[in-house]
């Protein structure tokens, strides 16, 4: 039986202070988005963010412990078996653990659209390899993401970051140019991103 306890899921602590416990990726789910979160070093469980860009509706279900959610400036303390449904993608939401054992299951997607795996999942999945200095493995995860989402500018940009850091200027410039051409925000971000320090003087660098 394809079954796992939340404590057995991979545990990837993110720089923002929460711990990502990949569920969709663990099971290979393709019909909907779902992941679990536990507290990181800062006590954050759910990253403070909006869904304005992806336009996702989200449910956060407390599976264990207690969590203080802040949704659109309102605070709510939720315990096991309570959930918050954030209908409005523009509302800022986040959650902080009130108990060490807190665990939250998130479910999300864009209404009226078949589920697409979000680019951030690959970025998160590559993080432990980047932290360990294993850029080849991080690049493999990002290539996996590009196969799933061909031409996705966020995937191209993050792959270019890794390639630039790994001393692969030609590949990095190709992927960065494609990302910048697809979306102006990546051209802007590249100008100050430290990952591109080694290629910023190249005449091919998108400006």
């Amino acid at each position, binding site marked *: 039986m394809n079954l796992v306890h*939340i404590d057995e899921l991979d545990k990837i602590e993110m720089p923002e202070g929460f711990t990502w416990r990949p569920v969709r990726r663990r*099971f290979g789910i393709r019909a909907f988005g779902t992941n679990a979160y536990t507290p990181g070093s800062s006590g954050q469980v759910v990253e403070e963010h909006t869904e304005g860009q992806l336009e996702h*509706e989200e449910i956060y279900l407390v599976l*264990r412990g207690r969590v203080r959610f802040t949704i659109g400036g309102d605070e709510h303390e939720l315990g096991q078996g309570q959930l*918050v449904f954030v209908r409005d993608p523009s509302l800022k939401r986040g959650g902080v653990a009130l108990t060490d054992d807190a665990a939250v299951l998130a479910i999300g997607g864009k209404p009226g659209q078949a589920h697409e795996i979000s680019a951030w999942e690959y970025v998160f999945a590559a993080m432990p390899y980047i932290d360990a200095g294993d850029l080849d493995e991080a690049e493999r995860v990002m290539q996996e993401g590009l196969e799933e989402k061909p031409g996705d500018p966020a995937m191209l940009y993050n792959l270019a970051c890794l390639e630039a850091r790994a001393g692969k200027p030609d590949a990095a410039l190709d992927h960065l140019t494609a990302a910048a051409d697809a979306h102006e925000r990546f051209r802007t971000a590249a100008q100050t991103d430290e990952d591109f320090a080694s290629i910023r003087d190249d005449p091919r660098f998108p400006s």
Partner: protein
Amino acid sequence: MSDGYEILTLDEAETGRHRGSTLIPVRHLLGFRPAGVNAWKADTGGQLIPPHEEDGGNEELYAVVRGRATFTVGDEEADAPAGTLVFLPAEVFRTAVAAEDGTIVFVVGGTVGAAFHSSGWDSLALAETYRQAGRLDEGRRAVEQLVAQYPGYWGAAYNAGRWEALAGNPDGAFEYLRRAKELNPVEAGPFFREDGDLDPLRDDPRFDELLT
């Protein structure tokens, strides 16, 4: 609380009966649209997940929120304490019973490669539970809520028509049933001919228009 979000306590939510289990109709109550979301609750020995298989392409994730469940998937049985996640692809037999009092299992489901669209079975289960309890007005409201969530879905309009017929409101019933026919005459037609809940309307000349 704002219009942009809603909090639900699974223990305190309305419940309906469905195929021998107690359903917490989360999707219906919240109007969540990207996937099917519901929960089931039972005391020790009680059925949580009605025995069933899912159609092709449907994936389901079960999360044991509280208590303990015993899952049967195909011929395999597994103990699932709180915090356990069980993932199942389509066309696999599954059921679960509670191994502790107050067990709750949350379910997420959807179809690979397709936008989620509810058939409304959860809303109708809640409405039917109200009907069995003689609470017709609450049942009508549950079906009206389904119509509001899926105004272009023939099944929602059809069931709203059924409920208006049951409530003795023929004008309202015909309005919904005509809408169901406009939306999908092929699927609605057999139901118009065979559904006993529409019997109070059959002598009305407007019923013949539905059958043409």
